[in-house]
């Protein structure tokens, strides 16, 4: 009987999923968690997003990633992002992108439950949409939307093809964001805080062909959607 009880208790301990608890102690992690909350809720309130979204900090330094869980619409951001971000705008750019995914998670039938299926079937469409919505969210919250380009240049790898991938090619994503900012918020490009930033400089270096395509589109007043390299 004793052995049976011990087996049951140990099984229960190892199989219960750890609750996604917020780090609230007074250590460095706690300060970072509070900072992330401040940035995230600032974006939510400034954009009058009427949905409950929570933010969690995962102090796994090896991971440079953030994700929005469709199950509970919470957003988790890893320590790797905090380590590579140089200012608050860059952290906000990552959070804004994930907030857009969480907002999509509230749309549709069954309180957005089916939305996850649509995301799995066509993830690239929602990634483009999230990047664009992130620009709007950042501007409304008082952040610089060019931080998206800076952060993406730093942390996103460049694959060869994206036909069967879940995310579009990074070069295409940053160009779509650049085009969106050019069309909607050109003053950020005209008075570019990141003009001398090494990562933004690298974006300019690697996007020369794509920017030429955009230049031709604007000069010819074309409304056709460009396919960037």
């Amino acid at each position: 009987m004793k052995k049976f009880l011990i087996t049951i208790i140990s099984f229960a301990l190892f199989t219960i999923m750890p609750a996604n608890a917020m780090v609230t102690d007074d250590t460095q992690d706690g300060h970072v968690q509070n900072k992330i909350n401040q940035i995230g809720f600032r974006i939510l309130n400034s954009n009058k997003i009427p949905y409950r979204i929570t933010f969690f900090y995962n102090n796994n330094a090896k991971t440079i990633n953030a994700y929005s869980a469709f199950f509970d619409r919470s957003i988790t951001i890893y320590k790797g992002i905090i380590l590579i971000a140089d200012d608050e705008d860059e952290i906000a750019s990552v959070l804004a992108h994930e907030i857009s995914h969480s907002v999509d998670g509230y749309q549709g039938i069954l309180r957005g439950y089916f939305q996850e299926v649509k995301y799995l079937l066509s993830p690239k469409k929602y990634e483009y949409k999230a990047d664009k919505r992130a620009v709007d969210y950042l501007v409304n919250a008082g952040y610089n939307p060019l931080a998206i380009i800076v952060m993406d240049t730093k942390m996103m790898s460049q694959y060869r093809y994206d036909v069967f991938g879940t995310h579009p090619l990074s070069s295409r994503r940053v160009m779509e964001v650049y085009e969106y900012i050019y069309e909607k918020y050109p003053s950020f490009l005209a008075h570019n805080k990141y003009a001398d930033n090494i990562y933004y400089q690298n974006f300019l270096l690697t996007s020369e062909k794509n920017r030429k395509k955009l230049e031709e589109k604007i000069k010819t007043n074309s409304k056709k959607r460009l396919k960037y390299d």
Partner: protein
Amino acid sequence: MINFSVKKLIVFSLLIGISVNSNCLAEPKSDKIQDFLVTDDFVSKNQSPQNIQPQNINDFLITKDFVLKNSTPTLTTSITPKEIKIHDYFAEQSLKNCKPFVYKQKKYDFQNVNHLFVKVNSTKIISTKTPMNVGDEVFFVVSKDVNHNGKIIIKQGQIVSARVETISESGTYGVAADIILGNFKIGDLSLEGEIKKEGFTHTYWVIPVSQAAGFFIPFSNHLFRFVHGGHAKIKPKETFELQIPDEFWLKQEKI
């Protein structure tokens, strides 16, 4: 008392451990130093001190600052690092008359639950099928008077201008396109809210049909990825609601 099968396991693992260790302790086949040298150049330069040439400090300087801080006045450097800055000439030229963005923090009263809404209809069909750019202007019309305390604060027929905010194209497996319109204004009055419209989602039939097809013809379900969803369309018949800013109609109350 140890079980006989456990005894077997212990002996087997000991044997494996011994055989692995014996390989690690094996002596190298050759003990001639020449076999371990990488290049002859390295040997010839380092074996006798007379062969060592004094290194030019200029070869190790990385930045101008480093040079200025660490070099003696008599030492001159041949390296003049270029400041390479890449310019976004097109943006600089085409946007030179753009004024800086001034952020105005909007103050919302989230405590207030009483809001006024205005109903609007589009003046024409707005569809993602017709080519359009972000920032294009579209027009709506107020479909019903807005009354508050017996006063008409917004009249029927007033034109509402809006802007195309985001266009998201249709995706694979029948996922529809969607369009978001925002920045609604009646004259100087900015309305709150956005209009989001999604096209017809073909996913509802694509998933079951593709799964059935894949069952009978292997891998044929992947062909359904080329089925795109419907275009987002806003028709003049459709009525949308937008929120009037609280401070506007509260002002009207005071008047």
